[in-house]
């Protein structure tokens, strides 16, 4: 980082990107206007990030792609050899390996899901790349685009809004229940743009869906900063499960922005499985819950190397009888730091909230901090929290070893067991991989 960049340098770069995106996506004017407005806000918005300072951000904007990766990846043989061998050790199928390598990009995903889509489109399911949804369903998108965020909240929100690209738009018609999980993996490998997918989920009354995003295997990414934004709108009685799987390489900063409005009696189960060893991951998802609605934020974290993870979570229980649970379990290795700071605000009568946080420290340099926040604005809310931070207990380890398991195998079993209760919503094919990744991490094989 030799030269100093200015905000106006960044501004002109972003302007060019907006022009590009607008032209390439044949974007309606209203969307391009949103981008430009966000760019104006970008100049004045605060940055509010403990890790990324302004110069770092500006340099990233000037040059989003990192150096040192293979120029072109045309087949799996072009992958860095360490990565290829890790994928083999994890037993990952060739099809999935191609996704991981970025050989199958988002447009390909569209193709793969096409047949399936046609079937379900008739029943009222829309899954489209967000750009395409903007063109084809402008009214619905307009109604739900950036309604839970203000672009000017921070420089990162503003930057995302100005240059968002990729992501999906998921719409479920009233009463439509999708009986199997939808797995979407999207990764844009275009080097000149920031990785900033925008995801919109709209679940009409009585609809149900389970959306799985990402994958458990480590992915080869070209960008060191990931700014994805997810907006979910759940209408009365809708039930949405959003499971996010991520395994970042060690040079990546991620700032996922997730917010959901949860209607009466609706349920939103938001699970994030963070494996691997990114550089930093800072998130503060927010949820607004109506009467008798329910929100669950489950964080499963395997922190390796010097990954810095700060997981918040703000739940506003706004309707009578609304409830929320913020539960996290972290296995913290090496020099990784995990901070959890969930907040539950009881803003209506008879609301309930619970925060729990468990951490297993696997090394002397691993670090955990937890700051549960409970705020009650009414006199009959039930709010509680619990936290436990500790190491593997010697008695447990001895017990398993006295049955003939090596220290390594016994440790793997304890660590897998520690996370197991949180993995109840994960489909079995991912569970197998998650367990394998934990085993490899515990044995120092990642």
């Amino acid at each position, binding site marked *: 980082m030799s030269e100093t960049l200015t905000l106006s340098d960044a501004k002109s770069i972003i302007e060019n990107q907006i022009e590009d995106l607008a032209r390439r996506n044949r974007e309606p004017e209203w969307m391009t206007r949103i981008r430009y407005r966000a760019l104006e806000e970008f100049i004045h918005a605060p940055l509010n990030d403990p890790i990324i300072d302004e110069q770092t951000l500006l340099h990233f904007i000037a040059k989003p792609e990192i150096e040192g990766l293979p120029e072109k990846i045309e087949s799996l043989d072009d992958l860095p050899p360490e990565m290829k061998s890790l994928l083999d050790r994890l037993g990952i199928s060739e099809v999935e390996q191609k996704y991981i390598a970025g050989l199958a990009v988002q447009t390909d995903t569209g193709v793969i899901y096409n047949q399936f889509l046609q079937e379900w489109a008739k029943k009222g399911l829309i899954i489209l790349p967000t750009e395409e949804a903007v063109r084809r369903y402008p009214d619905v998108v307009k109604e739900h685009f950036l309604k839970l965020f203000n672009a000017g909240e921070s420089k990162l929100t503003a930057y995302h809004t100005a240059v968002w690209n990729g992501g999906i738009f998921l719409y479920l018609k009233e009463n439509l229940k999708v009986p199997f999980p939808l797995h979407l993996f999207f990764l844009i490998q275009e080097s000149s743009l920031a990785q900033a997918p925008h995801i919109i989920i709209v679940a009409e009354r009585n609809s149900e869906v389970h959306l799985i995003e990402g994958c458990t295997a480590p992915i080869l990414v070209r960008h060191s900063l990931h700014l994805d934004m997810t907006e979910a709108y759940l209408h009365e009685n809708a039930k949405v499960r959003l499971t996010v799987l991520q395994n970042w390489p060690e040079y990546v900063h991620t700032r996922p922005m997730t917010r959901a409005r949860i209607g009466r009696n609706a349920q939103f189960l938001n699970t994030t499985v963070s494996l691997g060893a990114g550089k930093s991951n800072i998130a503060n998802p927010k949820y607004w819950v109506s009467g008798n609605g329910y929100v669950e934020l489950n964080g499963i974290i395997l922190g390796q190397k010097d990954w810095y993870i700060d997981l918040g979570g703000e739940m506003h229980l706004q309707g009578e009888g609304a409830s929320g649970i913020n539960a996290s379990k972290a296995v913290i290795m090496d020099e990784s730091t995990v901070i959890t700071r969930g907040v539950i605000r009881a803003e209506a009568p008879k609301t309930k909230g619970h925060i729990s946080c468990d951490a297993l420290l696997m090394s002397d340099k691993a670090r955990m901090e937890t700051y549960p926040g409970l705020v009650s604005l009414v006199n009959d809310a039930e709010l509680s929290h619990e936290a436990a931070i500790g190491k593997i207990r010697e008695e447990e380890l001895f017990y398993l070893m*006295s049955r003939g398991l090596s220290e390594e195998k016994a440790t793997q079993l304890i660590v897998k067991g*520690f996370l*197991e209760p949180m993995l109840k919503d994960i489909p079995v094919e991912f569970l197998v991989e998650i367990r394998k990744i934990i085993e490899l991490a515990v044995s120092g094989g990642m």
Partner: protein
Amino acid sequence: MLKVDDLHVAVEGKEILKGVSLEVGRGEFHVIMGPNGSGKSTLALTIAGHPKYRVTQGKIIFEGEDITEYSPDERAKRGILLAFQTPPEVEGVRIIDFLAQVLAEIKGIDIGEAYDLIKKKAEDLWFKEEDLKRFVNVGFSGGERKRLELLQALLLEPKLLLLDEPDSGVDVDSLSVISRKIEELHKKGVSIILITHYGRILKHIDRENLKVHVIRNGRIVKSGGAELVDLIEREGFKAVFGGGNGE
């Protein structure tokens, strides 16, 4: 098969065993009795290789091999199994998966076969199939924990089985199934060291060949046959130790 020779053991700097010697031959049944804090459990945990129990002097020979410095799993692989007095809870680990993994690794039994074997043996110890899906010892009663320890002994069929108070905190029915299973293992030729406070667990066991040791303050102070058990049952440890300071 097992030879404990002048064993001194310290825990966190404090000496608990002060020179214990004990020989256990193949298929023998030894009983170790003694008041609380006399060093009974320490002896069992040290033979099993608990890292907190440090041998400061003496050694443990198993089948001619000095195992004093071996890790717990190396001892288990050689055929030593300790049934814990209070086995710990292992959150998130299902009994069935755990036992299958142990059988696969120790005995080389194929996983599918292991599952069948576990289910079959579990019935003998009153575990239903759904019980086996529970997490190891999590929320278990005293009796359930002891029965699970015995189930592991039945499955692994060790050469030497150390039983640390299999009769404490157990209801009468569990006690009788546990002692019958101990006798069953004994008849199969498993050498046994049983630690207990009371004689009642020995009711189902052939008393003829019992070798009984009384331990006090980290030393074996008396050895004999089943008559020692009767004496302690009747008159307490003071009958063995003499004087009035028996606990």
